[in-house]
């Protein structure tokens, strides 16, 4: 092949008017692409505004808190410029008093006090009190403040203020994982009796796993029936499965309370029929049992539906073929039918588990104290303790755990194996 031949073969193909074919094709499809994009644009904007932005903001909140650095500017500047360890000298206290006066004037001392109180309990009154009296304080400020409250010479407090001076920090993540900085600034676990969140995370994951497991056991035969029954029976059954979907969450949950509370229908029936005596009533509400029962009921359809849609596509001849080849009914089920339902099982478990991990209303209503999940704690920090940064950190940890599990699932089963319908 000569050089000229090669050059001709490599020549860019052109459309009839001489423009390169690739350009001509792009031009021809551009309109259609823009039109298609225009159609999805409203949804895209909606998702960005209502989903991507809030999540981003939450993530930022979890490590970025300006309550101290904005309202105590002089002290923050001093603390970040000077490397102090332990209790600093007079200069720092002078900056502190300046800022306390300023915060008192701007009425922002509450924010500062709340922020410090997250990490140093009891410091709220210490700050508000000092701010109230700051105007009348005389130098040397160090002695004056320590005279007001001995905690001002606590090196731990100064460590905390030093970190709070920088709006970016991991202290909320540490709190979310039941850890803190000690006097020397190294990371340690909090005392055992005040560890709250890690046990709660573990409980949330365990309960969600348990609920997903119960859902799987309950849903498998139902989904199989749905997929194999004649149409008129399976339609009726499908309505029963979907009924919980169509009922208000609150109605369902309160019905469970009516049924299962210790003075409820279920216990009354058992007592009346003599199975248990009046003192032996089962505690099925306001504890973990309540959370498990009510959430299993609510999440069951999310397990049934993906399994049903997968089982629907498995022809009965597979099991027949296995039987004719000599497999017992159990072997035919376990080696032939069951492996083919795994995409549905995977989808169902993932769906139920992730929904359960973030469930909030049901455990709040029927969980009592032992049935609370991490989302209830997040809600508490959002709504009543107003420690949004900690709520955001807890939420971020939860998000991270779920992404990790999702990744694990993808590695083990493969996400493209999943079938939702």
């Amino acid at each position, binding site marked *: 092949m000569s050089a000229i031949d090669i050059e001709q073969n490599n020549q860019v193909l052109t459309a009839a008017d001489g423009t390169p074919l690739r350009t001509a094709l792009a031009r021809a499809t551009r309109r259609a692409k823009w039109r298609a994009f225009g159609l999805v644009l409203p949804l895209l904007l909606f998702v960005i505004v209502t989903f991507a932005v809030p999540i981003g903001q939450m993530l930022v909140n979890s490590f970025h808190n300006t309550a101290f650095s904005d309202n105590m500017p002089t002290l923050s500047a001093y603390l970040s410029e000077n490397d102090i360890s332990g209790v600093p000298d007079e200069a720092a206290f002078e900056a502190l008093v300046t800022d306390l006066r300023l915060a008192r004037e701007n009425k922002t001392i509450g924010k500062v006090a709340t922020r410090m109180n997250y990490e140093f309990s009891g410091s709220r009154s210490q700050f508000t009190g000092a701010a109230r009296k700051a105007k009348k304080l005389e130098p040397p400020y160090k002695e004056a403040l320590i005279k007001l409250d001995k905690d001002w010479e606590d090196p731990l407090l100064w460590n905390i203020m030093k970190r709070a001076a920088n709006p970016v920090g991991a202290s909320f993540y540490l709190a979310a994982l039941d850890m803190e900085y000690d006097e020397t600034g190294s990371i340690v676990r909090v005392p055992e009796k005040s560890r709250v969140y890690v046990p709660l995370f573990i409980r949330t994951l365990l309960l969600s796993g348990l609920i997903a497991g119960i859902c799987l056991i309950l849903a498998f035969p139902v989904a199989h029936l749905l997929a194999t029954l004649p149409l008129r029976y399976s339609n009726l059954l499908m309505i029963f499965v979907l009924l919980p979907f169509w009922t208000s969450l609150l109605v369902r949950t309160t019905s469970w309370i009516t049924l299962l509370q210790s003075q409820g229908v279920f216990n009354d029936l058992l007592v009346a029929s003599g199975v248990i005596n009046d003192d032996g009533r089962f505690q099925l509400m306001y504890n973990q049992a309540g959370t498990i029962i009510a959430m299993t009921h609510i999440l069951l359809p999310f397990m049934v539906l993906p399994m049903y849609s997968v089982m629907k596509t498995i022809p009965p*001849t597979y099991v*027949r*073929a296995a039987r*004719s*080849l000599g*497999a*017992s*009914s159990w*072997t035919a089920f376990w080696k032939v039918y069951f492996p*083919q339902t795994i995409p549905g099982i995977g989808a169902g478990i993932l769906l139920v588990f992730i929904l359960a991990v973030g469930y909030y209303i049901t455990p709040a209503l029927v969980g009592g104290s032992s049935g609370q999940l991490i989302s209830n704690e997040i809600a508490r920090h959002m709504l009543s303790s107003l420690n949004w940064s900690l709520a955001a950190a807890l939420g971020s940890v939860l998000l991270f755990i779920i992404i990790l599990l999702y990744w694990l699932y993808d590695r083990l089963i493969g996400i493209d194996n999943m079938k939702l319908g």
Partner: protein
Amino acid sequence: MSIDNPMVRFDNVQKSYDGKTLVVKNLDVDIAQGEFLTMLGPSGSGKTTSLMMLAGFEPATHGEIYLNGKPINNVPPNKRGIGMVFQNYALFPHMTVAENLAFPLKVRNVSASEADEKVKRILELVELPEFGSRRPAQLSGGQQQRVAVARALVFEPQLVLMDEPLGALDKQLREQMQYEIKHIHENLGVTVVYVTHDQSEALTMSDRIAVFEDGVIQQLSSPNELYEKPQNSFVAQFIGENNRINGQIDSIEGSTCTVQLDSGERVTADKVVEGDVGTRTTLSIRPERIELDPVAGSVPVTIPGKIEELIYLGDHIRVRMSVAGTSEFIVKVRNRTGRKNLEAGQQTTVGWSPEDCRALDEISA
């Protein structure tokens, strides 16, 4: 018809799904060792139900099925030791071809090395030696078909059932597979019960064919007897093409009879239908047995007819004629040199031998 030591015996078997109608009525069939028996019939005729009862997937409502002389009504399908090829192959999609083939061996606790050996041998038999590690979805329809056959044979059953196994293949592949299945049957000597609604498939492959209609076997005989000597009008019509002329038996002479056609002519025919003089009958004549415009005296029966339409089909010409009151009378004329020139509208005669004309039960035109 009874056979000594049949492999399979259906003894007065009945099947009903709804308790109101019988899908299979009084089925009595003996299937000999090594036989290739085809159950042929239109859909809903009971052939697949009969096969499913034999496989053990449907219980018989009444009667008993025997396998090697033992009643098997209460034997579950996995204990029957019958190989089966399903309509859509039913190859397990989550297993490789080799795993599919090893499945029946594994459940029988055959050792891994022996199973490997058997899988290798059967893959060679179906000419797919390199395909063991593929998944069924990666095979073409014909290859899947072969794997399905191999899987039904790999555990060396004496009896193999096939439920319309070639239905999903295109025509050419289907014909090729017919020969392959036939050869496997001959080489291995297994007994095959084959279900199909395709009559040419049945004729090609079978030792005997059972023609099902309405839950009853209409005729059970060899392919050529089925074609040459249909016992009733349904079989004559279902197997191959035939011309039907209605008439009434006028006189009976031993095994033949003279029939007065509704159009007035009198013809001689083989008497198959039961009954005396005066019985209504339908005459059945194969289109290729009819001679168009025969030389006088060369065939015993001649009646006049008119050519309505000519259809050129290459090796033969299909001539549609009006004969004895029907305008759907078909004659096949071989396309050979020197054949007479035919034209639509031509008045001519048709003729045939009495042994090619069978007087069957009447079906109203």
